[in-house]
């Protein structure tokens, strides 16, 4: 019976810890984040949604509400901060914000190769059956992580991804002198909704290193 009590107590502690970890962890909303078109569109949608319910809400009020909720969650999460080294060692956690926001301005990966004479060719474009150079490699989930996110936030890893792509191409194609990797934003129009604002193209070029 004594072991059962110890086990029950240990399980209670672990479950309490992990339940707190599972509470939403909302990132701090910065002014820069708010300036992004997708954030503005989401705020407009929420404003319209409240409007349909007859509640008039200002954008600033919505932002304050989200900030207040986020701060409260951060305070709860901090209770178990001393256990962070354990979580790190074991690699455990409970952040399950899976597709919490659907991205209606998704980026499409494209790789363009320039030859010495100036001619260029798009050798890879996501889901383009005619541009498939190393398609499986770039689509593999751990590689996709380097470019299929908020590229503004992950600029450094996107730069390193470009270097990997360029090095691969230079090794395979002696004529290639420059490789450009870009994320081309597209807009998904939901039937009956307004077209989202245009995103910006993010691209990085890499020249063949001189011997």
């Amino acid at each position, binding site marked *: 019976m004594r072991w*059962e*009590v110890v*086990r*029950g107590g240990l*399980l*209670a502690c672990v*479950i309490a810890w992990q339940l707190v970890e*599972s*509470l*939403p962890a909302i990132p701090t909303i910065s002014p820069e984040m708010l300036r992004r078109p997708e954030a503005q569109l*989401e705020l407009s*949608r929420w404003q*319209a*949604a409240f409007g349909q319910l007859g509640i008039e809400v200002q954008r600033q009020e919505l932002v304050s509400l989200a900030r207040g909720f986020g701060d409260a969650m951060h305070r709860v999460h901090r209770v178990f901060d001393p256990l962070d080294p354990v979580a*790190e*060692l*074991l*690699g*455990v*956690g*409970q*952040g*399950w*914000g*899976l*597709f*919490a*926001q*659907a*991205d*209606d301005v*998704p*980026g*499409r990966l494209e790789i363009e190769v320039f030859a010495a004479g100036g001619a260029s060719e798009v050798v890879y474009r*996501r*889901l383009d059956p005619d541009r498939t150079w*190393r398609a*499986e*490699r770039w*689509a*593999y*989930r*751990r*590689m996709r*992580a*380097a470019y299929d*996110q908020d590229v503004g936030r*992950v600029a*450094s*890893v996107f730069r*390193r991804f470009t*270097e*990997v792509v360029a*090095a691969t191409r230079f090794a395979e194609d002696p004529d290639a002198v420059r490789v450009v990797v870009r994320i081309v934003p*597209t807009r*998904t129009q*939901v*039937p*009956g*909704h307004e077209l989202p604002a245009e995103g910006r193209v993010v691209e990085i070029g890499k020249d063949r290193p001189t011997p």
Partner: protein
Amino acid sequence: MKTWLRWWSGDEPAQSLALVRVLVGLAVLSDLATMAWVGALGPAWSLTTSGGIVDATRKDLPLVAMASDPALLLWGTMVASALAFTVGWGSRAALVVFGLASAQSALHYPMGDRAIDMLLRNAIWILAASGCGATLSLSARLRSGTWMPAVEVPAWPRRLLVLQLVVMYFTAGVQKFGLLWMPMGDFAALYVILHDWGVTRAIPTWAHNPVGFFVLQLGTASTLIWQWTYPVVLVAPALARQPTPWGRWLARWRPERAWVALGVVFHLGIAATLDLGLFPWGMLALYPALWDPRGQATGLRGT
């Protein structure tokens, strides 16, 4: 207090946990094999000095610090340990080694560590504390002369895995705060996700008409309702033990099975339409935990 202790007490046949062990092993082995097959091992886990995308790693990670290029060492350790626990040879030790190596890969290249990796690590640690290697394993064959001896093991790890699934689905549901998941956003989330170049297998031109769009709206609403109500998988079996008409109805019809079946459909649908790699298969690998090997019910049924 007594109810709490009763929930976690008792033994049960080891098949469910053994099956989770084998399926998780096959899922991660398939992912690691894909990583090598498509040539992503070096690019994803090597340092920039060796042609990879990891620019600065942590020197306090033993597996990473041991080699000038840690990609092969991390990968090899994970493959060897996953092979060992999949066939059930020294399962507990192999699960511990895999868990630690996987955690180090997450710290080495955090961006490449996805939610499914963390979920499977959570499961790995639970399995490591369980008797999942007692059957359906090489160890069992060597010990008892049969691959599947009838062995009973503590039931609490399987119940903890069920709780993990419930927490995962439920909190994934409540965190879907993007308006496109909601009636005010016309339940358009799946339509939008299927147009996301990074994850879709094909742009769903079949949905570019009212009927196709409606099907995806239905899918969005169903996903949200299913995730929000997933705790049924825990609650229904518990209530089914009550000697009330409601309890008898739950015991007879076992509605939680519908949530489990929907989960299978949901993940197979994801596998067919979205290119998420390990995610759907890793999730389905945990589903045998929802099977009570005594055949009574799913969920946290106490003994």
